[in-house]
């Protein structure tokens, strides 16, 4: 009886700990989801709207880079190659996050 109580107490504690651990991981995955969305939104907006920076800070204009005025070539290159780099990282990290959420939720939805 004593042995049984001890055994059940151990398994209960183990179950509680693993459930707490799972909850913690779920909470962390949720925070990661929100964080990724906000960070990548900011990065994407910055890469596509660098013109705003040049109009807000006119002293950045007029420098020549690769033979073009800075206010022209930087937004053009960042809006293409810079954006591609950000999107590649975004795809990798959000794919991993989806896998994590699906694993925690115990689903394999193959969406």
């Amino acid at each position, binding site marked *: 009886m004593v042995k049984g109580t001890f055994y059940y107490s151990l398994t209960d504690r183990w179950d509680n700990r693993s459930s707490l651990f799972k909850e913690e991981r779920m909470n962390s995955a949720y925070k990661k989801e929100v964080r990724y969305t906000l960070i990548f*939104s900011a990065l*994407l907006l910055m890469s*596509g709207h660098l013109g705003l920076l040049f109009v807000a800070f006119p002293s950045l204009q007029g420098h020549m880079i690769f033979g*073009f005025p800075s206010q022209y070539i930087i937004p053009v290159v960042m809006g293409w190659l810079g954006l591609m780099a950000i*999107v590649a990282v*975004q795809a990798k990290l959000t794919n991993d996050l989806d896998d994590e959420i699906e694993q925690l*939720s115990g689903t394999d939805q193959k969406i």
Partner: protein
Amino acid sequence: MEQQQWALESPTLGIIFVGASFIIFYLIGWYSQKMAKSSTDYWTAGRSIGSVTNGLGMASSYMSLATFMGVTALILKLKVPFVYMWIQFALSIPLITLWYGTPLRRMGAFTPAHFVRERYGLKTSYITVIFMILIMVMYALGQMIGVAKVFEMLFGINYNVALICGGALIVGYVTIGGMYGTSYNAAFQMVLMGIAFIIPLGAIMKAMGGTGWYFPPLLYSDMVPAMLEAVPDFFDMKYGLKWYASLIPCFTLGAMGLPHLGMRVYTASNLKSARGAMVWFTFFCGIVFCSTYTMGFSGVFFQATSSTGIVPTDYDKITLILNSVYNPAWVLAFVIAGAIAAGLSTISANLMAIGAMIAQDIIATIKPDLSDKTMKIIGYLAISGGGLVSILIALNPPTFLVVSILWAFGLAGVTVAPLVILGVWWKPANRYGATVAILVSGLTYIAVSPYLFPNLVIASGLPSAVGMSGSLFCVPLCFFLHTTVSMITDRMPALMARIPHQKDKELVDSIHGWTDYSDERYNSYSAGMIVAAVSLFFCIWAVLPGGW
């Protein structure tokens, strides 16, 4: 400076190129249609499109006649500020995938309107669908105008005849092909238009004396000193902070609300493939967008240095005009085929979205037990009806074809994007907030555009015509109303008892992939207050005088 009537010298060549490309489009459409086993396959291409094909398809839906003709026309008018306006369009698919691509796929939604129906109920979804159909018709309108102008130059015929013939050909092709046809055709069209745009552009640059003709998107810096001498203000930023800031609500958020772009995320075989397609999309988009800036640059230089004047009504034809001046006739004929491919791919996507909304989001909700065959017939009718309406409106076109397209982006940013973003990410967003927000802000956007009440505008000129000033005010207004009305009604038990709010909140968790519900996720009132306060600030800033 003399003015010239621009037309293809030998229409036979043009007819051969355009005819051959149409035969290929029809064959791809017909073969693809055979693969559609059900109406769901028809709308989503059986969710089987691979990432490169889908990336090409995504870019192709975007590389419309606006890119081929409209962008260069407005670069001719506005110079470099229009380039800034265009750069940010490449953000659309990455932002859609980031903010609601995953949740909407999990839900199995065809369009954002489908999501609105599940999240906010039938009444709000009908309002959304009406706005979305208006958006798609205005978008298709710009393409129809472009197709008519290409046919006009190709055959030297009257604009109206060109519009009716070109429009009928295109609507017929879309109706036959469905989404399989548009997806596979879009990939082919993207390749065709890319080649038809970039290679002849290299030849134009070489003829103009540029040494970087072998890579037109970026290598034209040696032409910059001559440009600065001919047009000293070409690189000037000209406009104020509001002009550049309004690009975000009007076009970046606007693109997020466009159903035909979202549909590309849903046609991928899985979400990882959709994200792979997103990377390809930015690559293809970037290379063609950068080439259009070069074409605009060359057009401005040609306009400033040549003795032949181009009247503003011919600005839309500058890509074709440069090809007719610097390249042989067969190249121009090939470019015309590419331009038609550009218009075709976007009109296809627009009409498919209209068809999907009418068939799936209206008819299927009113009469859910219709047979699959009836639903397909309704889809065909909706597509051809949408095409017919855009042809009829195009009989009386605005000066620049891109104006109606950009205005449509603004309306999408005002009505669709805030509802979907808040609906996916904020549980307190409820049906009352959504209905009030979409109605008030959508109608306000239409009212403050210069087409209805010319004196009731927030800014004058182009920012008003393309909806930039309207959306700088109305997008934050939509966010403000949605958050505040939701938070206020949430404290009225009598009202909340009339809607299944708990079920709506559970939906938010499930579309994010959580199988067990937690009230702590996506449920922050502080976030709602911050969104409301920031939105109110931008609403006030938008109506303050000056800054444009």
